[in-house]
């Protein structure tokens, strides 16, 4: 199977988000950038499928030069090679624009069987890239996938999906796009030899312009425009009770009833 995994670099989840002084974005100074946690599940699943069915795993990422670090992490997990689409000449792009860029990168090659993505990226939390790419490629999709079996010969996939209070089984034809959810697998840690090997793996550098896309046009065509950011309102000062558990519990119930008016 020839599998692409779309990966994104995001701020570490331990980051305390601060805003740029004009509120136009977040303050990126001092941020530790990591591979999007859900992408690790996508990569792991791709590696497992490759090991079962042979083939190759190709990482595709769009972003500034720093994303190479996330790409190398995926290569160290065991992906075979990568395509990095730099954001040169692409000042600002929305979800659709980003999906177009990724699809253009995929379309440089033929014979993809599967595109895996994380179910969402934990920066903008939009959860749009997977279905958008599927729609633009006109392939079927399933997001929030918890389990899957591939019938490579029959070119079919059975995926289980997590819903609210339910799980769902979906049958898809290949090629398809799948979005990985936590619980799908346990991502492997890169071993030292694999980290060394990853350094020599191919990362093909391309850009939107190389792919025939006009960055300025993508910006002009944005359908979703971010106007600014704000921090959530601060939470009120807590009331903390100590002492005898039974008394504290009784006081808490009174507070919840009279003050918070929740009970």
């Amino acid at each position, binding site marked *: 199977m020839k599998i692409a995994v779309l990966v994104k670099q995001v*701020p570490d989840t331990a980051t305390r988000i601060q805003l740029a002084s004009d509120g136009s974005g977040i303050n990126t100074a001092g941020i530790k950038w990591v591979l999007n946690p859900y992408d690790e599940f996508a990569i792991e699943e791709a590696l497992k499928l490759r090991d079962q069915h042979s083939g190759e795993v190709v990482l595709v990422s769009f972003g500034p030069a720093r994303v190479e670090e996330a790409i190398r992490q995926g290569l160290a997990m065991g992906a075979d090679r990568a395509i990095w689409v730099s954001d040169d000449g692409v000042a600002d792009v929305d979800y659709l624009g980003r999906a177009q860029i990724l699809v253009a990168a995929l379309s440089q090659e033929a014979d993809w069987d599967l595109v895996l993505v994380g179910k969402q990226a934990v920066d903008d939390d939009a959860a749009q890239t997977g279905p958008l790419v*599927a729609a633009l490629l006109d*392939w079927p999709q399933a*997001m929030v996938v918890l389990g899957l079996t591939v019938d490579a010969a029959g070119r079919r996939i059975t995926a289980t999906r997590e819903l609210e209070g339910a799980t769902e089984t979906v*049958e898809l034809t290949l090629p398809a796009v799948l979005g990985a959810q936590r619980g799908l697998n346990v991502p492997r840690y890169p071993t030292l030899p694999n980290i060394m090997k990853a350094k020599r793996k191919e990362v093909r550098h391309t850009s939107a312009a190389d792919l025939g896309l006009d960055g300025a046009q993508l910006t002009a065509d944005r359908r979703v425009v971010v*106007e600014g950011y704000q921090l959530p309102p601060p939470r009120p000062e*807590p009331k903390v009770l100590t002492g005898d558990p039974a008394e504290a519990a009784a006081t*808490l119930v009174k507070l*919840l009833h009279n003050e918070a008016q929740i009970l």
Partner: protein
Amino acid sequence: MSGILVVLEQWEGRVRRVGLEACATAVRLGHGPVSAVAFGAGAEAVAEAVGGLGVEELLVLPDTPFDRYSSDAFAEAVAEIVRQGEPSLVLFGATAFGKDLAPRVSGLLKAGLASDVTGIDPDGDDVAITRPVYAGKALQRVRIVGTPKLVSLRPNVQPVGAGGGPVARVSRPAVEVGAPRAVVTGTERNDETVELTEASRIVSGGRGMKASENFRLLDELAAVLGAAVGSSRPVADEGWVPHSYHVGQTGKVVSPDLYVAVGISGAIQHVAGISNSKCIVAINNDPDAPIFKVANYGVVGDLFQVVPALTAALKAHLDAS
């Protein structure tokens, strides 16, 4: 159609609550008539479920291939209905269903989608939108350019007030779609437990619970409160509770009226998932635990004493009232 279209998720005539929230939001926005579309067996019965919310027209697609969810066929159908009716705004619920479907519709129509939206208000003919990013550590203000504008709403945020008439018309739109290539062949519903993202009260346990069997204490507290049970991530990773319990930045992001964090330290990734809660109660034996910084109320003490005491006090309170 014009106006606003709400895409409902329904099974057996039951509408997911966020669908009702979306109908109420559509009416509140006041951008023309509100219509809704429902798929699958029982779609007609949805007229009753959304009755009184101000939906004027209900479009139903009860038959094959819409009796089983398929992202491709459903997205094509919504896109076709939008092309025919030209609504200015299309609302989805940001559930697994809506998150699968809405971006695919966006791709088909090349229409902008703002997902998991918590704030939406009329701004002339436009709408002003806010949505949480970084799991709620910041809020983003976005504008959608062009029409239709697509929005998926985070569950449990928008109020459902009765404020409109019954459904005036039920109609069956004529839509042609290709053979579905991603078809749901089975659904296993767990109807006994309250879904965390929809729950108005949640009791969550962390590593301080010490062992799987101690979650019984939380089940008892939850039963008295009518709450759903959740957990921190390590507890789900340990297998003390199912993965579906995991709350936080990489788990479920919840917005209940009441969130009770028991034996949870309050790591930034956990807090990110609960910061939209109206009232947070923390129970922890470490007075310096960071969870107390985000809590409205805290009890410093041994959870193995405090939780049973709280369950008893709540029972007494409910019996008295």
